[in-house]
């Protein structure tokens, strides 16, 4: 692994994730309710946000 090209090639491999569970929600099903804390200390409740309009949930990990 002295050649930096190997490191670059190896780093490309970690962009594929091994899935161990997948969610059961499908398009058309009722969105599961939740309340979660935000970074400013506020608790965000999905139902409150949906009452104001459509919601996009983005699930992220680090800078992915």
């Amino acid at each position, binding site marked *: 692994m002295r050649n930096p090209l190997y490191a670059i090639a190896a780093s490309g491999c970690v962009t*594929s*994730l*091994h899935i161990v569970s997948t969610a059961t929600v499908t398009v058309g099903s*009722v969105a*599961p309710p939740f309340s979660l804390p935000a970074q400013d200390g506020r608790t965000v409740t*999905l139902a409150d946000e949906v009452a104001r309009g*459509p919601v*996009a949930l983005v*699930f992220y990990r680090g800078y992915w």
Partner: protein
Amino acid sequence: MTLLAISLDAPEDSRSFAADLGIWFPLLSDADGAVSRAYAGMSSDAAALPGVTVIGRDGRIAYRNIASVKDDRVSTPELLAILDRTVGTTGEAAAPSGYAAVDRMQVRLELGGGAIRDSGANHGTGVAAVGALFPLGHHVLVGPWLSFEPRQAPVDLDLAVALRQPFAGGLAAVQLTAIGGYTPWDATGWTASGRAGIWFAMSPHWAFTFDLAAGEHRLGDADSRLELSATLGVARLFRLR
């Protein structure tokens, strides 16, 4: 349209992440992974699968995309097209209301200095102001304003009306403010001034302000004083709803 980003990170980690990237939408902490499991799924490294879920006004899932490979993630232009197609959001703000600094009330404390032209002579002076500005849409603010200046009466009771042009995604604005009012300690005293300024929100709760002001105080029929000043200040931002 509300954007909510969800990860397993603790709120304090999300706070520094948001500060690093200048993020203003909510970063929600799903510490036990229950919401991530329900909506997205988990990978072997005990983190949520990255993905996007769109929920319509009826509370039902309108779209979902879960990526196990980085290149499978939906791009921003694709997501905008999907939102348009599924929930019809064209023309609506992408940020949730209440997170943009321009939607917030500002309570300002300003300190500065300048010069007053009084009876033909110029004098240096300190100035201070406390005001509350309520947003009426993105471009107009209005609210009470109190000005202090040691060469004048103790305090002016004023009303401020501001026009502003937000930039940097609503985190900052250039602002022109007209302030007028009277001095209750002098029956004939009144004041009128104009200010050109800029403010920049450093967090959802605080902004820095800088203003240049020119104004006139009239304390009697002949006693007119012209004042020029510059002020630096802080504004505490309050969510109105």
